């Protein structure tokens, strides 16, 4: 007889669901993607499209094979993976390679571990590592913006001692900073234009989609370590994929720790490993591997680093007025 529904509290829900959060992320990535297409030409657009379409199709196929129904969040998540993957590879990458990478990201890195919410590693980054191992030459061929002449990235120039580590001693260092800031440099499709990435990052921070702790910890650690070891902090922050990695990859909700302290540790760890690879490793750039390694530490951080709960004051302060 009763027509009233009886449920447990709370009886209202926030408007933002996971699909909307993911749409925000896609919107935030668009400025950098558009800048990449402008700088590196139509081939980039084809690659981005191929990567996203492949990711969506792979998502549907995997969900079908696992006997699950696709929900909006699954599809938006695969769009992010496809878009991110195309943005962290060289603009010279052929579209079919991006397609294979996308399928690897969705099927092996994500669905083999249980699908959305259960993957240990960031799918796009793990797929990039897979592609770098499979096609090392193409993945490290860097066309310069506009003229498309291939050249070395700034970090590679530092690594091979063509560019001075302590950039601030060089006469035109301000101009170099500016060129890095507006994206006039060789590099991955979406990582070059710092200003476009920062626009997106501000949007995500304002919408509460990402938390400041991981990007702050990451970027500050990189800056501090480079200053300590005689490299130019501003150059180290702007060159390479740090801005993209810190704001869009390390903050991937699924693969980061959930506690506040844990997020600081994660960010600082990412920064430290990045600099270790840049200074000591064989690769010129370390953001990708740094985040992947810290992804692996995430379950451990979640287990052992637990934030202090209200009312559990340390012994000395217990009952303090």
């Amino acid at each position, binding site marked *: 007889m*009763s*027509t*009233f*529904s*009886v*449920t*447990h*509290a*709370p*009886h*209202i*829900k*926030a408007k*933002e*669901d*996971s699909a*909307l*959060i993911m749409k925000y992320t896609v919107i935030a990535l668009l400025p950098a993607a558009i800048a990449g297409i402008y700088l590196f030409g139509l081939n980039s657009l084809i690659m981005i499209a191929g990567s996203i379409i492949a990711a969506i199709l792979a998502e549907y196929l995997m969900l079908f094979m696992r006997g699950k129904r696709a*929900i909006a*969040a699954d599809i938006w*998540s695969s769009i992010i993976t496809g878009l991110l993957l195309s943005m962290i590879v060289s603009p010279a990458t052929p579209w079919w390679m991006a397609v294979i990478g996308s399928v690897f990201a969705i099927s092996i890195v994500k669905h083999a571990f249980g*699908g*959305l*919410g*259960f993957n240990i590693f960031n799918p796009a980054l793990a797929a990039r590592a897979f592609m770098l191992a499979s096609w090392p030459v193409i993945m490290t061929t860097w066309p310069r913006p506009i003229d498309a002449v291939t050249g070395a990235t700034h970090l590679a120039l530092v690594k091979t001692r063509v560019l001075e580590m302590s950039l601030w001693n060089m006469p035109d260092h301000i101009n170099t900073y500016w060129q890095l800031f507006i994206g006039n440099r060789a590099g991955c499709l979406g990582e070059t234009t710092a200003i476009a990435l920062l626009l997106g990052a501000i949007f995500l921070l304002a919408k*509460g*989609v990402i*938390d400041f702790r991981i990007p702050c910890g990451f970027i500050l650690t990189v800056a501090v370590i480079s200053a300590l070891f005689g490299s130019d902090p501003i150059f180290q922050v702007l060159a390479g994929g740090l801005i993209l990695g810190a704001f869009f990859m390390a903050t991937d*909700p*699924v693969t*980061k720790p*959930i*506690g*506040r302290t844990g*997020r600081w540790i994660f960010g600082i760890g990412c920064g430290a490993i990045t600099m270790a690879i840049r200074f000591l490793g064989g690769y010129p750039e370390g953001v990708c591997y740094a985040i992947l390694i810290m992804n692996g530490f995430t379950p451990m951080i*979640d287990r052992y680093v*637990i*934030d*202090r*709960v*209200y*009312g*559990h*004051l340390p012994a000395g302060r*217990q*009952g*303090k*007025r």
Partner: protein
Amino acid sequence: MKTFKGGIHLDSHKEQTAGKPIRVAREPKTVVIHLSQGGSPCQPLVKAGDSVRIGQKIGDSDKLISSPVHSSVSGKVTAIDNAPHPNGFDSPAVYIESDGSNESAGPIQNISVREAGIVGMGGGSFPTHVKLSPPKEKKIDTVILNGAECEPYITCDHALMLEEPISIMNGLTYIMKSVGANRGLIGIEDNKRDAAAKLTPYLSMGIHITLLQTKYPEGGEKQLIYALLKREVPAGGLPMDVGCIVSNVGTAHAIAVSQRTGMPLTERVITVTGAVKNPSNLRVKVGTRIGDLINDCGGFSGTPKKIILGGPMMGITQSALDTPVAKCTTCVLVLDEKNVSLYEEQSCIRCCRCVDACPVQLAPNFLADYAQNEMYQKAIDIGAMDCIECGICSYICPTRRELVHWIKLAKAKKAKK
């Protein structure tokens, strides 16, 4: 602006009734007065056929933590039987048919808080006389009056602060005297500055009004203490462990009224709002059925889908309209179809919104994971018992998980053991 860590800003929805004067509700024909309205259930002192008058004690208990109940009308007891309780279960209650004459049982000389039947009127329903007699070794230095009213829709405390500032101040002074505290703080969210302005002229020595950030759950006991005093109630402890007593403004008002008139608590202010034609702040006799209150407010507007006693964050849904209101009922909220949706729980994407919003800094997603997998002890180990059940985690979860429900389950399983 003072506040606590975590919490979220909610749409207040208070405009429907905010600032509306308190209206006396239509006289109920029948009242159903629950014997369990604060602490241990009472034993009935009347039987079917007895005639009772307003203020007559109809139930009492010899248990320490219990508060007596009184008739809110004059008339005849028709039955003592189970009735739906606002907490969602059925429990024994006294059915009284009103004769409409409202004859009083007369004032009691030097009425005590216990004899006045006063309980926490913000929803807690804890017997106030127990709260006001802390053990000697617990020195109370501050009495906090809770005028935050952080739940959406509810405006009964707001209306009371606007209309009865003197009673509230007198009640606060009474509480301060009885626990020997020399400081009184009234915490009010900054969306109710008019209420703060009304109270200000009646401030006396040692009493201060503090505006708090409008944020849910600012009126949670532990959150309020932290916001005002930066003290943390130790886990498993009570406010008196950090020298505080927290009381609702409604409770202070009830104490002052009973001291002035010598009459026990038989009525209170309730907000009837949501999908009703004429949302109001009503002065309601305890035991009035919610159906009568909704009719009093012009009936439903639109199709009612949920009837909630309390606010939308912590309130309890009712399956029918014959539930009577209790001393601690703050609000009758009707939600129509537009405001009720059912969601399917998805898997966690670890976005941390629940972690960042949790006012006691728990990790609700992990607690819920453990509870869902029946690992209740694990959930207890990482703090399930510290959960204040405010509902923020379920509200904010973008994957629509019913986090607080799972945490409550873990707590209930622990209690059973």
